[in-house]
């Protein structure tokens, strides 16, 4: 047996041992996984961001990259009580830039096309259902007035739409989780133990 495959299989079994009860073997596997992931990701970001996108272009002549470089260093100011306020400069830049980019992109790319699609198909049963579903669901989350009378009826309809949506999500989620289990069992039975071709 391939030792790497065997090691992977043993860690898989260690993780699944939690299904019986919490135990030291499970916790060991969990900590190894967390540590490895953190280490791997740190190395990856160091190489792909600091080396490839900062250091190499910088020594190649793109001196303006000193500015984002300094901003990056400022984020570590949080480690000092005295200088932690400096990290807010970098955070303000990140939040401002992301908000600016994402706001327009989300509005034009997601919100407006979805709102438009909700309105233009009202002539069909499906379109009407979508409109009723959207409005009643929004009303369900309107808490400025008690859910009584007409508002109560509409909110109740919205609750049904939400429940049906939860059902669909739950069904798909079960399928997703079972798929992962199937994948692991296929690995154990086929790749590790070679019990089936």
């Amino acid at each position, binding site marked *: 047996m391939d030792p790497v495959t065997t090691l992977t299989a043993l860690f898989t079994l260690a993780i699944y041992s939690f*299904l019986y009860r919490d135990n030291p073997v499970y916790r060991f596997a969990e900590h190894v996984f967390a540590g490895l992931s953190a280490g791997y990701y740190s190395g990856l970001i160091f190489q792909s961001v600091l080396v490839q996108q900062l250091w190499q272009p910088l020594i190649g002549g793109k001196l303006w990259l000193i500015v984002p470089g300094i901003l990056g260093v400022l984020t570590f100011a949080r480690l000092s009580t005295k200088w932690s306020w400096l990290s807010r400069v970098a955070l303000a830049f990140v939040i401002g830039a*992301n908000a600016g980019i994402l706001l327009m*992109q989300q509005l034009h*790319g997601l919100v407006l*096309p979805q709102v438009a699609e909700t309105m233009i198909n009202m002539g069909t049963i499906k379109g009407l259902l979508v409109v009723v579903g959207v409005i009643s669901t929004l009303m369900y989350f309107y808490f400025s007035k008690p859910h009584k009378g007409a508002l109560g009826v509409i909110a109740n309809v919205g609750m049904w739409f939400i429940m049906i949506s939860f059902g669909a999500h739950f069904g798909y989620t079960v399928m997703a989780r079972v798929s*992962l*289990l199937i*994948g692991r069992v296929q690995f154990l039975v086929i790749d590790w133990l070679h019990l089936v071709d």
Partner: protein
Amino acid sequence: MSWTAHLTSFDRRWIYLLIALSVILPMFFPVSFPERVTEQTRSVYDAMEALPEGSTIMIPFEIWPSTLPETEPLARAAVRHAFMRNFKIVSLSNIGAGGPSITERVLREEGDAFGKIYGVDYVNLGFKANYLAVLTGMGTSIRSIYPTDHSGTPLDSLPIMQTVDRYDDVQFVFAISDNATIEYWISIVGARFGAKIGAGVTAVMAPKLFAYLDAGQLVGILGGMKGGAEYEKLINRPEWATRGMGAQSLVHLVIIAFIVLGNIGFIASRRNKAAE
């Protein structure tokens, strides 16, 4: 203890055991259930079929290793279909941890099976940090974001990249994703740059994406293992997804049975309490 109390309070480990058996046994004694191809899967297939032979498509692998059992079968099915139609594939990944190596493995294995040549028929651009900048930048120039491919070869030296430098140069994007990046492909690459996009996603994500399908922002959706199995059926190459669907269906039946039993127990115990 009454039978109703048993139904609502028995050890959940029995459920785990039954689920495990439902997954393991079909591997030794295969079971199969009828597989109906859904409209959203057929739409992706039809979109690929509608392209002329030799077209260039983009297949981003936005996937983490943890979801491979779901995403790899549908990724392989799409890559196979593309190679069967002699499409050229430009691939990349915005997921640094594992994305590029998964891309490399799937493309190399499928490419070898179809006699395709790296750099001529397909290319793996690899990973670059900051997906917002990557997706936006590739709209004007892929080379500005990826001067080289995953292994450091300059794009200008690869035959496949001689005619490709932005989204306008690819005829279809099939984004495989297990995370929110699929919405950036829709809102940036689809809405802003006008690319036709199909999605191959994990089952957890599929329900949310139906809104984009209805709005015409997605051509079609392959949802999880079932989507993969449907696509394998369409291209007439049943593989891992098809194989897994037998166990999948069996587990679903077991879960449905437990939901019914649990509800019977709950209703009966509530009636008993009311009677007392």
